[in-house]
């Protein structure tokens, strides 16, 4: 994978002419239209736009949870549009972490077991697994809640558990779909700061879909979607005053500023 990244000049994701259409009655809905984007290692980027603009669809395709109707999406060296289900699962299992708007914690499991889950799928030995889980929980400040069940946690704590679960396997890429949508302002700040710190400390690439201004302020690159089209792609946030924060020129989307 490292070799692949070097060969691709640190490019983790590259989409070309990505289009996604859903059948709707006798017609169809165009969720994405001709989206061409590139994401590099270490980015802290966000796809922003109003509801229904295609943010989640784009994130799902980049996470190999969905496939495009047209176009290509190369994610960590894999062509998502032609990736068999098993290989897509393997890609997600090893290299991609997900954070969802509704946390999606496994209700029957403790915090520890939730965070441990991705490592179980990877077949990691118990001792290493335990160490990694504790470390991941410490990073989000929840080591003392390892034995709690999800229903005993607040929204902010639940999302921090989800972050911990996403980073525990040390993934190349974390995709966060509206991670602060169900949180109050204070928790939203805490969550986004936690993720920014992880990005800085671990070098993990974070890509968000959001329309939350509190999150957008922290992004170092903002891609704006409207009606499934990219209408803006620029460096943003505190680092946008100078050069872009991820080492390249802002505006990697083809045909956009």
């Amino acid at each position: 994978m490292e070799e692949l990244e070097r060969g691709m000049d640190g490019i983790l994701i590259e989409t070309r002419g990505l289009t996604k259409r859903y059948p709707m009655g006798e017609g169809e809905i165009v969720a994405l239209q001709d989206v061409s984007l590139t994401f590099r290692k270490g980015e802290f980027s966000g796809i922003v736009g109003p509801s229904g603009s295609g943010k989640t669809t784009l994130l799902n395709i980049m996470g190999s949870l969905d496939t495009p109707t047209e176009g290509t999406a190369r994610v960590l060296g894999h062509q998502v549009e032609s990736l068999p289900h098993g290989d897509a699962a393997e890609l997600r299992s090893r290299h991609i972490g997900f954070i969802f708007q509704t946390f999606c914690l496994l209700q029957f499991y403790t915090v520890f077991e939730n965070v441990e889950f991705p490592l179980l799928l990877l077949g990691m030995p118990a001792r290493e697994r335990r160490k990694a889980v504790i470390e991941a929980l410490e990073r989000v400040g929840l080591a003392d809640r390892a034995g709690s069940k999800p229903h005993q946690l607040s929204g902010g704590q639940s999302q921090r558990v989800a972050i911990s679960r996403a980073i525990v396997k040390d993934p190349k890429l974390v995709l966060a779909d509206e991670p602060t949508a169900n949180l109050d302002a204070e928790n939203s700040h805490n969550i986004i700061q936690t993720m920014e710190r992880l990005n800085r400390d671990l070098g993990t690439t974070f890509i968000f879909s959001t329309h939350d201004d509190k999150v957008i302020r922290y992004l170092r690159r903002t891609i704006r979607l409207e009606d499934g089209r990219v209408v803006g792609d620029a460096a943003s946030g505190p680092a946008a005053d100078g050069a872009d924060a991820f080492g390249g020129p802002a505006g990697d989307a083809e045909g956009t500023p």
Partner: protein
Amino acid sequence: MTLLRLALRNLVGAGLRTALNVLVLALAFLAIVASLGLLEGMNQQTSRAMLEVEYGGGQYWHPVYDPYDPLTLEEAHGPLPASLQALVGGGEAEPILIIQGTMYPEGRLRPVLLKGIDPEQTALTLPAHVLAEGADDPEEIPILLGSRMAESTGLGPGDFVTLQWRDVNGTIDARDARVAEVMSTPVQSVDMNQAWLPLSRLQEMAGMPGEATLLVLAREPARSGPSLPSVATSDGWVLQTTNDLLADVRNLVRAKRVGASIVYALLVFLAMIAIFDTQVLAIFHRKREIGTIMALGMTRPRIVALFVLEGVLQGVMAIAVGILLGAPLLWRFSQVGWRLSEKADSYGYALGDTLYPVYDPGVLLQTGILLLLVTALVSWLPTRKISSLTPTEALRGRAA
């Protein structure tokens, strides 16, 4: 191992739902095992009683003897061939002579089979020794009756009753007989409409000295032991092994099993509805969970396997719970037995007044395996939905 761990976590997490499923399955398992135990007990108890009281270790029949055709009795007697006589001489077999006769209890006519047996015999557990007293007294004929026969004729020990019979020449004769004893036996076929007499006395009465209708072997011949006389060396006398003799009993039990299997099927079906219902609900209610674990990297075949394993584990738990809770109960049941009503005696089974269930480990194992296989199948059927589910649909909680 990972799947097992996850399946166990899910089952423990589901709490009451799992407990109820396991309970229903365990009860079905117990009910099936208990009723199979009763049937096996019936089989063994009846077979044992028939062997001890009537069949011995097998029999040789006179060439024309047919127990289902009383008309054959007129001809079904003859001297024992030398090869069979040798068995009697060696104490390995006991001859029995059967002729037709009539009894007149309280002046009423009652057709009976008169059966002659040696009072000294040990091949059967019939209390034939009671016939020894007065066996040589020309003035009285000692007879042994079964309790059913005694009850239906109103006769008891010491009572006299007139017997009438035809000898080998067709001459009709009659004499009073004394009831020496009334025996209680679970085997109806040595009781109803029968009277047992000393063999030598019946041979004399019928003019058939040294003759017999059948020969009862004292012990079942060992498979590896010396071979018994064949049809050729026994002048056409036909060997009836215990298997042949018990065929009717086994057919009866088999017929019972078929009837009972409908009840098992119903029990299993009810238990499986619980599992199926749980699985169907799980696929729909846990759709977002399925989407989450898909997103975390679990493949669809593994998710299907996880759900099936959850179902199978419920079956395993049910068997464990069934054995743990049911073992003392079933053990006690096997000791105390099932008290049968008087009506049961008329069904034709030689069961006595109590049926003791027998639990065969093989049957237990078969029942357990069957339950697990059906549980696995029922668990798998609804999970086929997962195969057509995409992660995004599942995460949204939408139907496949």
